[in-house]
């Protein structure tokens, strides 16, 4: 299985409908970009802090979301410091941090299955030319096959290591792709045999 980023909980933030959370996130990010001022950013920061507090999340959760982008933040801060001043540098980095934290709040408090269900419910209102069943099939199949692809990757790497080829990216990728394409043909036949399409 693939683990998602969801943090179990039963708070008001967890219980809020995923669609509402998504809408709030879109409104927040739009406002922060359109009304590009310090008071608005401060308000957004406070809003996100309250969200984390209400969701009973620990500072570690926020830290984990920001850690991968810290180097980019540092480069950006120094560049703005050189090009403009310390205020603009702080503003730009803080705006990124707040938006990333707001979006992560949605991810941490909403199960992937809730979002997939929400997406499917939303697709019911989509125009008729949207191939809803095919989108649903593709999403389900990818989620099912990611762990299997990871296993195959490890198998192929072990096999190529025995040949002394595990340092060659091409020797790892070609079997992975060819094997997957062959599997895809079998899977397509299996689906057609069950008359799903």
């Amino acid at each position, binding site marked *: 299985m693939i683990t998602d980023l969801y943090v179990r909980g039963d708070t008001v933030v967890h219980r809020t409908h995923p669609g509402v959370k998504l809408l709030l996130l879109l409104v927040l990010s739009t406002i922060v970009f359109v009304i590009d001022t310090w008071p608005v950013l401060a308000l957004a920061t406070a809003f996100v802090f309250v969200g984390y507090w209400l969701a009973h999340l620990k500072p570690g959760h926020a830290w984990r979301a920001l850690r991968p982008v810290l180097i980019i933040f540092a480069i950006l801060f120094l560049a703005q410091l050189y090009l403009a001043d310390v205020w603009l540098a702080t503003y730009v980095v803080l705006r990124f941090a707040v938006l990333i934290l707001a979006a992560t709040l949605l*991810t941490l408090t909403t199960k992937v299955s809730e979002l997939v269900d929400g997406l499917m419910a939303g697709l019911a209102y989509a125009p008729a030319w949207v191939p809803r069943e095919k989108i649903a099939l593709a999403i389900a199949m990818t989620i099912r096959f990611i762990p299997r692809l990871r296993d195959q990757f490890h198998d192929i790497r072990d096999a190529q290591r025995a040949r002394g080829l595990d340092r060659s990216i091409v020797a790892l990728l070609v079997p992975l792709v060819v094997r997957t*394409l062959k599997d895809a043909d079998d899977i397509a036949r299996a689906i057609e045999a069950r008359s799903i399409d």
Partner: protein
Amino acid sequence: METRDIVYIALFAAIVAALALFPPIWLPVIGVPITAQSMGAMLAGGVLGAKRGSLALALFVLLVALGLPLLSGGRGGFGVFFGPTAGYIFGWIVAAFVIGYLTERFWDRLNIFTAALICIVGGVVVLYAIGVPWSAVVAKVSVMQALTGSAPFIPGDILKAVISALVIVTVKRSYPLLGSRSAA
């Protein structure tokens, strides 16, 4: 779109996720990590073609947005799309389309050189044409400054284009999906 096309799209989205398992390579001299995952767009376009390739990447991006930690380093969720480099993630969809379109056009003349050139056009030129202005706008810097910031990654991306071209040409030999005889 037949069932087979849906399966190709879904499984290639899973391949892009599996590429996150490749350990990052550190380029000497320049000192930036190059990750295998951005080869996903090149491989999807070059193997599946424009339509299926770009849909595979769109599906991958959708799953990341839904909260699965599929990007290299285990990143995922909506937060990814608010960072300074989000343009590159959306750019993968366009890059896969361009690479797929060019691969279909030059299918009969596809060799390591044309394939590498195609991957550089789609996976470097087009991708940076989306990613660089995006970072410039959200990070409040000029396009030239954003380009300077991304420049250290260009050699790594060209290397990835060459590796992808090798894979695309080899896969074409053993399992061709494009071209007239095996047109889907």
